[in-house]
């Protein structure tokens, strides 16, 4: 039985929740519990594909669950950007689940039921964010995502984990309640609606200077996008187990952030309106600064995961930056980079986790010669790293291409300079690691004799590395789909 598209939309949000419930119920029997996780993940992806299918046939789906406040409802819809985010999140959930099983068992972690259940709830939150039809719905699920990931970040339960989780929750809640919510209420006060509408809802209703303030509140209020100075939670959350880092960095959390910002720029402000706001430039500078500053900080990190965290901060601001360039091609670049970065970064984190499980190594300096012991892992790491730099034939090149094209479209040479400089910096911190892993000789005597990590982990990271390469060739469908976001008011 194939459900109708609007039912599929409801199912997409419910599937992970039901999965979470079943995971809790089957908690006593790990094999069954993991099977539930995998089945749920696959089912969710299938449902998202079903929704994608109807979108390609230009069926318009919109459902309203309930009217929360007069004129404000919990409702969902589909559009190209949301389907992209949903597809990425649900697909990577499958891969991450396979990987988690290897990681959690390999490390003999505690509280695994709580882990899988919270993971599923977080995915439900991500689906809600993806398909929300207005800012209120988006905010609701944004907070679901924040709260459900807190136990994951605090998973280990020791002092460091608690401290990191506190920072994580503190910054995300403070920014969302402190800036995002007032921005939403303000938007409602001036526009009288919060629906995502092609062409935006704010044009002609707010003066240029105030529009910049509002946009700033949105950009900083969406703390998940980690634009400086609200980026501190991301390195703090590095205390979490690696699958959680993957969830944060690639599957759902930061993607939800940049997705939200892109969506607000396109569907709340509208490109045509923002182009006329002169001070919008300030935000471009802020995002550009984040790209460079985070890369410089990453250059100085010795802990692999911390380095990757700062790399994420920089890569996220690529997306925000591209969205703020306001050229049609750069919006596509932003959307494509959500995919490209997801594939690349998840590979890198999977590799970092595999190194930790197999060799208990966490520092860059310990990686000398590890490429010979873990060839699959380190090859995948190299591919992921090259994608971050943006070298062909990787996914990172595709998005960078569109971003640069967009910058030319608007003659925005600041953005161009930032992109070039960031590429150089990325190369400066990824290439030495790859070199060290494959061409340096191992410390004598080796601290621990080891091979590859457990096979589910290797399988997962090989898959995502392959995707990084494949996306370079087969990016057509994604790009075509995303041209849909450029359609003006219907």
């Amino acid at each position, binding site marked *: 039985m194939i459900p109708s598209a609007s039912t599929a939309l409801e199912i997409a949000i419910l599937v992970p929740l039901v999965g979470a419930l079943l995971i809790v119920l089957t908690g006593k029997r790990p094999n069954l519990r993991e099977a539930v996780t995998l089945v749920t993940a696959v089912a969710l992806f299938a449902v998202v594909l079903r929704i994608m299918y109807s979108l390609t046939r230009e069926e318009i789906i919109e459902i309203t669950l309930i009217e*929360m*406040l007069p004129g404000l409802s919990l409702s969902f819809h589909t559009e190209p950007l949301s389907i992209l985010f949903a597809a990425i999140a649900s697909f990577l959930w499958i891969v991450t689940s396979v990987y988690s099983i290897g990681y959690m068992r390999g490390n003999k972690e505690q509280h695994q039921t709580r882990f899988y259940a919270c993971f599923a709830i977080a995915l439900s939150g991500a689906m809600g964010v993806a398909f929300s039809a207005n800012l209120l719905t988006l905010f*609701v699920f944004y907070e679901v995502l924040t709260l459900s990931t807190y136990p994951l970040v605090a998973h280990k*339960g020791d002092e460091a984990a608690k401290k990191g989780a*506190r920072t994580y929750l503190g910054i995300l*809640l403070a920014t969302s309640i402190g800036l995002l*919510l*007032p921005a939403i209420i303000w938007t409602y*006060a001036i526009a009288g609606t919060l629906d995502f509408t092609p062409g935006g809802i704010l044009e002609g209703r707010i003066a240029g200077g105030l529009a910049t303030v509002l946009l700033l509140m949105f950009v900083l209020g969406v703390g998940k996008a980690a634009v400086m100075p609200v980026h501190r939670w991301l390195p703090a959350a590095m205390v979490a187990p690696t699958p959680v880092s993957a969830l944060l960095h690639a599957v759902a959390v930061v993607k939800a952030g940049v997705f939200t910002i892109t969506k607000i720029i396109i569907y709340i402000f509208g490109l045509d309106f923002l182009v006329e706001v002169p001070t919008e430039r300030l935000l471009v500078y802020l995002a550009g600064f984040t790209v460079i500053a985070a890369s410089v900080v990453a250059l100085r990190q010795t802990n692999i995961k911390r380095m990757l965290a700062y790399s994420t901060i920089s890569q996220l601001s690529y997306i925000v930056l591209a969205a703020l360039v306001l050229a049609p091609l750069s919006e596509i670049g932003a959307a494509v980079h959500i995919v490209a970065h997801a594939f690349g970064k998840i590979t890198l984190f999977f590799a970092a986790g595999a190194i930790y499980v197999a060799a208990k190594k966490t520092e860059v300096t310990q990686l000398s010669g590890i490429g010979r012991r873990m060839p699959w892992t380190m090859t995948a790491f190299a591919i992921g790293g090259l994608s971050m730099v943006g070298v062909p034939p990787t996914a990172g090149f595709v998005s960078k291409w569109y971003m640069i094209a967009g910058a030319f479209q608007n003659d925005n040479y600041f953005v161009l300079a930032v992109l070039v400089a960031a590429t150089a910096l990325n190369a400066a911190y990824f290439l030495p690691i790859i070199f060290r892993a494959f061409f340096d000789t191992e410390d004598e005597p080796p601290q621990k004799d080891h091979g590859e990590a457990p096979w589910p982990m290797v399988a997962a990271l090989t898959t995502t590395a392959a995707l990084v390469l494949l996306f370079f060739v087969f990016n057509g469908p994604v790009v075509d789909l995303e041209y849909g976001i450029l359609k003006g008011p219907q």
Partner: protein
Amino acid sequence: MLPLIVVAPMLGAAVAALLPPGRLPWLWATAVSWFMLWAAVGLAAQVMDLGVLSYWMGGWAPPIGIEYRLDPANALLALLIALLAAVVLPFAGPSLAAEVPERKSPWLYAAMLLFLAGQMGISVTGDAFNVFVFLEISSLATYTLIGLGRNRRALTASFSYLIMGTVGATFFLIGVGLLYALTGTLNMADLAARLPDVAATRTVHTAYAFIVVGVCLKLALFPLHLWLPNAYTYAPSAVTALMAATATKVAIYVLIRFIYTVFGPSFAFGEMPTVQLLVPLAIVGLLSTSVVAIGQANIKRMLAYSSVAQIGYMVLGIGMATATGLTAALLHVFNHALMKGALFLALGCIAYRFGTTQIDTFRGLGRRMPWTMAAFVAGGLSLIGVPLTVGFISKWYLVSAAIELGWWPIVAVIIVGSLLAVIYIWRVVEVAYLQPAEDTTRCEAPLALLVPTWLLVGLNFWFGIDTRVTVGIAERAATLLFSTAAGGAP
């Protein structure tokens, strides 16, 4: 029906006092509270259909006789009192059996019913002196109830509340007396009609000052709140829940009634510096007591301080002197009762097991009492104002009202207040879920306590998602309070 809702608990109290000690007084009081709920629902429905209900005591026409008068504003309040009573009384049985000696139970439940009679009386009466009478009835009952706490400090807490409460009631009486001397009437509607002619006199100004200060003592507006933390901390758990949920709310209602109906907004906000008085006190109160709450070691006392802070929000809404602000205040009266009710009931479960609510007791409770702690977290989220809970709805309206007025600093204050709530709630959550307990046996509270607790938690979410009832009544009440003020007599 209208007088019955007051008469039933009052006569019920006499009956309860005559019953033999044991379970019988409790069952009787519960039955009476359920009758009150049934009556209150019926009355609220009638008010929504017919507008204003009026009942003349003994058939004497107002303004000579005493009038009971129900409009949307006090219908909401009556519903609230009855609802909380109907949920807390079933909880009170097992909870108070553990905290208060059995031989006192007839008096205990008699006092509880008298308290309810007083509260209900204040909310339905249309007579200013009658308000004082019922205020004293409920206050005297409260002093008794607080004094029943098992810690001996309950007696001093009760005594200091007695002093402060009596001062407040006396101030109120002086004010009413002055009005009577000037106008020769005690009926609120009649007062409202006659006061504008004499509004310029010093007597009316003095009366207003006495009434506002007296009521603010009862509702524990900062800095007149000093009686509240001790009273809430040392009273038996069920009593605290009932008091926190209803007593201060009724005082808030009296304030609204006198400002908007009796004196009228044009007098209260035009001639008297009400805004300049209420708004700064509300702000300082909500910020300072939130900070104080963070430092409390006893969680019951922490929530007591949080209550004072939340009262700040309500007074802020009243002080805004707009229909939206008043709607926000009325909504928060209702919503805060739900969240504090749920939180204090959860604490009651913990006190039932451990006899204390010190933060050390909470170690590892997330595993030992999963349902209780989940209820606490849910109530806490509502207090913070996370979407899908009632707290979010109140905050939404309050922030909207502030934006409408262009009071940007107030928006910031409301938000900082929410963030402080995050800190004090999360402190408990961390201890409960992340600190290991020495004794790890499960000791979940009995079902008789959990069901009422979860009922209130459920209502927190229900009215957070489906806001038709609460927002509907609150909006109608606010518009009515404003329109009657403009048109003289209601």
